[in-house]
């Protein structure tokens, strides 16, 4: 509370002392309609709108959406200003209101900034170096399980396959082995209902008499029960897990209070929503891009066969030795950032260069647009993983590559995500050859932007199970 007051007064002072300064008006993107502004295009063609906004106006572009001013910031300097601003100035909370019924009241984005930062801090031990090694083993195990029943040749729906695989890896790493083995089927249904309950209607009111919202709330109640059951089992048996659930069971607030099952469930869901679909579509896009770029794929395969002999484990250390694979994943994230727009609301007046963005404005940055600025990433539409290699390093300037956001709210699961997708490819690409059967590829933007389902892929087995 104290920090907020003091920062707020700084904000006022800043405006007061700058009274003599003349600010420039924010240029408005073309196509605004009377009353509606850009609302229709915002809902129907968001990427087209923000890309045009950048091309027309440059790093500061004004939009009018649903009666609100949204200012799109693009380019490394503007992004740095957005990401470095403290929460008391630019807050992510408002934009996440839609998630409150899922994550829960007083959990993460719905809690006060101090409480939220304490809660996120509790996740830290679950994401630290040592634990990562365990997750790597889990992801490898799940990937091998996922393809164990594949024959010599066949066809799969890539989108479906990636979603199922990353659902198992996430469940296993977050909720633990018992949950993965005993409750996967029911969890899939509960999680589905929670996802379907995340609708833009929640911006109007989080609790409307809609069937999707009723199902959402019922699902959350059930999930709390399921988690309580596992927590109870662990407490009775004394068995400990190497997972997020255990970390949260052990965690305490500074006051000494433990997390309630409501809070544990909410934080696990926050981690699940952050990590599952994002990793899923990144896996799908990377496979698609590699399949379309055979020359680069050959180099990735040569690298993987150099590091891994048949039957070798995919160890944490070995994942540091496959940079070409890593650049391919990064390049997919550049072209297809799962979260294509990031929002903050200005709690006080915010100054950027010659612009004054008044309190109440929403600020946005689009990784999709920013990753297509030719001055930063030449020939931006080209899938060219070598742009990250030594000598070029086009992402070297801070805040140029923002697939994971930046600053204090940069994705906590960034290292986990890279570890996971690298592990999946180190296994899949040695075991199978893939051919994509779709062209052109239609992206579909829901919670994240992925290739449109179904997406048929033909595989051919290269090695028997146990050899990759």
């Amino acid at each position, binding site marked *: 509370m104290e920090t907020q007051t003091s920062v707020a007064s700084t904000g006022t002072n800043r405006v007061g002392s700058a009274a003599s300064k003349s600010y420039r008006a924010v240029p408005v993107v073309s196509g605004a309609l009377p009353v509606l502004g850009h609302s229709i295009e915002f809902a129907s063609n968001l990427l087209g709108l923000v890309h045009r906004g950048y091309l027309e106006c440059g790093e500061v572009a004004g939009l009018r959406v649903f009666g609100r001013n949204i200012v799109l910031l693009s380019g490394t300097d503007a992004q740095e200003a957005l990401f*470095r601003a403290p929460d008391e100035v630019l807050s992510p909370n408002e934009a996440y209101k839609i998630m409150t019924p899922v994550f829960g009241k007083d959990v993460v984005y719905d809690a006060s900034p101090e409480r939220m930062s304490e809660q996120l*801090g509790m996740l*830290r*031990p679950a*994401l*630290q*170096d*040592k634990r*990562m090694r365990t997750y790597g083993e889990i992801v490898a195990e799940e990937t091998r399980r996922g393809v164990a029943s594949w024959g010599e040749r066949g066809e799969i729906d890539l989108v479906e396959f990636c979603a199922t695989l990353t659902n198992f890896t996430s469940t296993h790493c977050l909720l633990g082995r018992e949950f993965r083995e005993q409750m996967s089927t029911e969890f899939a249904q509960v999680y589905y209902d929670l996802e379907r309950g995340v609708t833009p209607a929640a911006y109007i009111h989080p609790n409307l008499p809609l069937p999707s919202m009723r199902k959402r709330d019922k699902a959350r109640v059930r999930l709390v029960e399921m988690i309580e059951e596992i927590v109870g089992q662990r407490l009775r048996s004394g068995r400990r897990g190497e997972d997020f659930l255990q970390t949260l069971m052990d965690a305490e607030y500074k006051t000494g209070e433990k997390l309630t099952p409501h809070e544990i469930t909410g934080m696990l869901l926050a981690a699940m929503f952050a990590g599952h679909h994002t990793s899923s579509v990144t896996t799908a896009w990377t496979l698609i891009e590699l399949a379309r770029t055979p020359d680069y794929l050959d180099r990735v395969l040569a690298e993987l066969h150099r590091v891994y002999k048949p039957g070798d484990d995919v160890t*944490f250390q070995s994942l*540091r030795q496959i940079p070409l694979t890593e650049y391919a994943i990064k390049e997919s994230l550049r072209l297809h950032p799962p979260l294509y727009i990031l929002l903050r609301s200005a709690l006080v007046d915010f100054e950027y260069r010659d612009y004054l963005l008044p309190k109440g404005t929403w600020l946005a940055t689009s990784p999709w647009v920013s990753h297509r600025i030719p001055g930063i990433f030449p020939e931006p539409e080209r899938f060219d993983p070598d742009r990250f290699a030594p000598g070029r390093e086009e992402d070297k300037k*801070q805040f140029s590559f923002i697939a*994971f956001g*930046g*600053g*204090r709210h*940069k*994705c*906590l699961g*960034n*290292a986990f995500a890279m570890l996971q997708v690298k592990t999946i490819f180190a296994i899949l690409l040695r075991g199978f050859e893939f051919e994509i059967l779709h062209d052109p590829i239609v992206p579909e933007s829901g919670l994240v932007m992925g290739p449109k389902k179904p997406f048929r892929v033909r595989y051919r087995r290269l090695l028997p199970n146990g050899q990759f």
Partner: protein
Amino acid sequence: MKIVIDWGLCQGHANCTGDAPDVFAVDENGKLTVLIAEPPEEMRGQVELAVRYCPTGAIRIEG
């Protein structure tokens, strides 16, 4: 070689402690300590790994 930390970005992930355990330490509250501010040249390889795999890009090498 000198290590420079951007304290506005460090989130205490402790990945650096895995890559260069003699150079970085992170306590249970996520507070980073640089144990050797100017590591000897033979540590360059591990420090570069720490820079490269820092999830928040908070580590830089000068020199």
